[in-house]
């Protein structure tokens, strides 16, 4: 409807995506306080978990440095835990572990979701029905049950394995959304043109359909990252966390097990709980504000 009729076709025919990008990079001119806030929070959290241990030279979170629940002091900034380990060091390493697991789980969920979603949406027919039926089955099974069973089945759970296990249960929502977008995108004329140039299914999906979903994929990844971090915390609190390391969820697990709440040792459970909340909040805020930038309909409501 643009060519013959819109008077301003020549200067507003730039795509939504390009407008989005322009806005994105013009961010310094445009005050989106929510994006700025959530971005800063995340940079701080990531810096804390990744650079903190290196800068402060605290590379072993498992080392015993104090007694049972020593209160915060000049040397133990956040006191010690039930094994006499430094809570501050644990918090840094735990944040890092949680983030790594979240990223692995998020990437895996996005990849599986994209694969199944685009295949189902593009191929249609029986393939679509089978794939979507499978997706719906995975959605209906409570993911925590699968997670518990999988975690028990694997005796040594590395950080990597934890991420994979969590990602394995969180992809269905992405797959469903991707399928819906793909089946509307595949009827576009540029897809037909590419087919007429002899492009194969895989190349069509990668070059003609995925670019149009880029902004959605970025946002879905942020959400999946969040889900991954929270799932890890849930599993770890149940004692099914990664072996031989510390995560935010495991810190909570030990704090509960060794009754830090009842004994009033707040430094055992408040810091990890606070960090989990902070990470989840910033990620959701980031997702909402990026959505607002990329999606003009939500702007200035």
């Amino acid at each position, binding site marked *: 409807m*643009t060519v013959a009729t819109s008077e301003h076709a020549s200067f507003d*025919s730039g795509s939504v*995506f390009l407008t989005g990008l322009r806005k994105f990079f013009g961010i310094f001119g445009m005050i989106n306080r929510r994006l700025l806030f959530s971005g800063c929070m995340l940079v701080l959290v990531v810096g804390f978990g990744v650079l903190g241990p290196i800068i402060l030279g605290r590379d072993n979170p498992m080392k015993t440095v104090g007694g049972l629940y020593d209160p915060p002091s000049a040397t133990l900034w956040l006191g010690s835990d039930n094994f006499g380990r430094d809570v501050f060091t644990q918090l840094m390493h735990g944040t890092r572990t949680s983030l790594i697991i979240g990223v692995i789980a998020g990437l895996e969920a996005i990849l599986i979701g994209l694969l199944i979603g685009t295949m189902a949406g593009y191929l249609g027919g029986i393939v679509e029905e089978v794939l979507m039926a499978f997706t719906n089955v995975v959605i209906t099974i409570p993911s925590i049950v699968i997670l518990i069973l999988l975690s028990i089945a694997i005796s040594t759970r590395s950080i990597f394995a934890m991420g994979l296990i969590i990602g394995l249960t969180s992809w269905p929502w992405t797959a469903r959304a991707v399928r819906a977008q793909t089946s509307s995108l595949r009827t576009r004329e540029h897809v*037909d*043109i*590419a087919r*007429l140039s*002899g492009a194969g299914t895989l190349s069509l999906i990668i070059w003609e359909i995925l*670019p149009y979903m880029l902004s959605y994929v970025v946002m879905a990844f942020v959400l999946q990252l969040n889900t991954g971090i929270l799932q890890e915390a849930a599993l770890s609190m149940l004692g099914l966390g990664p072996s031989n390391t510390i995560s935010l969820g495991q810190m909570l697990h030990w704090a509960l097990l060794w009754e830090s709440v009842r004994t009033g040792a707040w430094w055992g459970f408040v810091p990890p709980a606070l960090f989990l909340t902070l990470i989840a909040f910033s990620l959701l805020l980031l997702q909402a504000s990026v959505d607002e930038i990329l999606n003009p309909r939500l702007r200035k409501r």
Partner: protein
Amino acid sequence: MSAHSSQVPLLETRDLQRAFGHGDHAVRAVERVSFSIQPGEIVAIVGESGSGKTTLARLLLRLLDSTGGRILLRGEDVTDLRRSNDLKAYWRKVQGVFQDPFAAFNQFYTNRRVLENALKLLNHGLPRQEHTQRIEAALREVGLDPADTLDKWPHQLSGGQVQRVMIARALVIGPELLIADEPTSMLDASLRVTVLNLLLALRKQHNMGIIFITHDLGQAYYVSDRILVMYQGELVEQGPVEKVFAMPKHEYTQRLLADVPRLRGA
């Protein structure tokens, strides 16, 4: 065009059908369509929106599977082509241009890519330099300056220019049949004429057969040799342009003809 009638047609359909959905709810978008087109002939398919024109175009381009009937290219049955190489061979001979030139472009890439991708279809290992030559020749033929077009994004060109790039894309492949699905309906009247002239030139230069799909009888009348009138999925009338215009037989054709606004009144 009577000289061609003894030859094997370039493209022929026999009782071509396409229904969407199943059973009682099935929508018959294309119903028993039979026609043929000769090499170098321009055939217009005219009908209102919802008459099944676009579905027919997609069937003929083998972008959509038919649910009945046959399609023959130079007498050879192409209805059931499935293998990628067979379809590619078909698309080397039959190409398309669509209604919305901007939607036909992937906005993430420049014009160069869509033209180079089209060349991949030919698959004869030309050296890179010849690729460029072929693309530039095609662009010049549609009246565009290659240096000024190739590395631009579609939204930097006007609607008429983008539609020319689309036609150049088909030219790069050099098909025997071009299926143009409402290529002018989103363009201004002044640009329409130039695109229609381009189609006429293609026929003259390359002896290309063209199926021109439109809802505008004026345009159909300007470019085509024969007119097929489509109504609710069926061909209700077909014949040489002069005949259809002078003596429209079907009631629907008469109405279409009466409804076209004329510059100096009826």
